């Protein structure tokens, strides 16, 4: 009974991926037919040689990497303060950090567009990176704040009395201890940036073309096989990253968590 339930959940979760794969490798598939008539991989091959796709893939990866790195650098100290200290106004800070996740991207995008036009950031990759920080930072901060709530500063105290100076403390003790949390937080930021559509469109002003933008324009015109193939290409890198992180966390994380 329980086993069937679990299998059912797996199936439900994997269904969309399967559907895409069906579409991507099929030639013609129209409504009443239960299965497509013919199969081939031409949609895939065509896409992989398309320079626009390659450029969009590069832009997406660059953007995701930059957002993930920048949000970690900015979010780390904020999360440490939120997680380890208790101070008045935590509630207010919590509330404020939540705001960007609620504001409709459309509205944020518009407001930022006006601002960025004045700062000459509209249409630049830097502008898009900054815009993506809006939705990414809160998740990074919440994830890391959770890690720091269980963080024991005595590890650092121990290291300092053993003769380690402040400068090396971060790299030799603090970072290794919170690494699993940092990776998960970075992953969150990457994923949020990766699937961002509206903000990229509004701030990028057509200069910055990422995969989601390409996907959208394809949807407006292309055939189902191309859309599905493109979707699979779009989904592949994050799926890979998540799977690797999950693996690593299972191996490493357990050993580290035992100590807490």
């Amino acid at each position, binding site marked *: 009974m329980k086993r069937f339930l679990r299998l059912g959940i797996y199936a439900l979760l994997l269904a969309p991926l399967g559907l895409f794969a069906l579409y991507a490798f099929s030639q013609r598939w129209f409504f009443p037919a239960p299965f497509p008539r013919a199969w081939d991989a031409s949609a895939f091959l065509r896409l992989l040689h398309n320079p626009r796709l390659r450029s969009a893939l590069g832009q997406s990866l660059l953007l995701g990497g930059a957002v993930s790195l920048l949000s970690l650098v900015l979010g780390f100290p904020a999360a440490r303060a939120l997680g380890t200290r208790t101070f008045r106004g935590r509630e207010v800070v919590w509330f404020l950090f939540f705001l960007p996740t609620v504001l409709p991207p459309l509205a944020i995008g518009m407001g930022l567009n006006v601002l960025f036009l004045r700062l000459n950031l509209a249409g630049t990759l830097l502008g898009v990176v900054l815009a993506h920080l809006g939705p990414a930072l809160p998740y990074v901060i919440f994830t890391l704040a959770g890690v720091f709530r269980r963080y024991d500063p005595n590890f650092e105290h*121990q*290291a*300092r009395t*053993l*003769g*380690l100076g402040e400068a090396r403390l971060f790299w030799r003790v603090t970072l*290794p201890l919170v*690494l699993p949390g940092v990776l998960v937080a970075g992953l969150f930021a990457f994923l949020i940036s990766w699937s961002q559509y509206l903000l990229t469109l509004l701030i990028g002003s057509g200069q910055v073309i990422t995969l989601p933008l390409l996907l959208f324009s394809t949807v407006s015109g292309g055939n189902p096989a191309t859309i599905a193939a493109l979707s699979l290409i779009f989904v592949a890198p994050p799926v890979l990253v998540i799977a690797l992180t999950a693996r690593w966390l299972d191996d490493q994380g357990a050993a580290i968590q035992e*100590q807490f």
Partner: protein
Amino acid sequence: MPTLTLHALTKIYAGRRVIDSLDLEAPDRQITALLGPSGSGKSTILKMIAGLETPDGGDIRLDGSSLLGLPPQRRSAVLMFQKAYLFPFLSVGENIAFGLRARRLPKAHIRAEVRRMLELIGLPGTEKRRPASLSGGEQQRVALARALVVQPRLLLLDEPLSSLDTAVRRELQVAIRDVQRRMGITTILVTHDLDEAMAMSDRMALLLKGRVAACASPKELFQRPPCVETARFVGVTAFWEGEAAEGWLRTPFGRVRIPDEAVRGPRVYAIRPEHIRLRTAPGESALPGVVRACLYRGAYLEVQVGVGEKTVRAQLPGSEDPLPAGAQVYVHLPPEHLFPVAA
């Protein structure tokens, strides 16, 4: 090896003087125990010595020169906590090498030192193991090795054994004591456990209300605590107030003989629970009481006796028969075991 001196040390938290102008000397090559109830600021003192907290007043001197200006990493005072705090991302050997690598010593020297320390703590051949694969007691041994391998001028122990089982704790008390003696490192041990402080230390300082209430050898402090508060902490529950005159103390419950003939005026005398005897018939130096509870504790029998509104705890030899609650008894206080305490 140096002597540590605390001068008028003061620490204020939220307006409260947690440590209140405290003076203490920890002699060269000895273990000085700082004993106090939880919340008495024991750990704060260690953190101030290690440089992890800043005192609000007073001085910390090592062989005469103040430590206050130095950051923790340059004080050569290593802390050991209740938990081992072994770095989980390093192997056992790398953990022990941590302090040596922080000092950028040559690799070959580090390897040799790590091996020597593992021998010393009785865990040879475990260099490559993960800390999590060791038992709690073994982890504390490794933490001890990690602390001692840097040959610190001071070893600061913050309840290092209180998270361990009784058997392991007893074993490690001996092991730490042993290694400390061999290396001759001046050590401060902070604990709330009287037993542990007595078993491990050369000198014992009792910390009450932010000050040192008493400081002496474990035996002196246990047998003849100078004041009521100290006496309570070392397990005395029976205090007798009254007028002393000509070798007698006149208490509200009757008079008892005291060892000193010359004492006169209002005095408080105390007696350790293991020296109290219970009789069924009245007699000299025996005060009437009622048995409230009787607990068998193996090596001894604990009898709680109500005398007036006081409850007095007596420890009788384990071979005696338990007394029923409500029984009428006479609490005999042998004069040779009564000693005066400051109120």
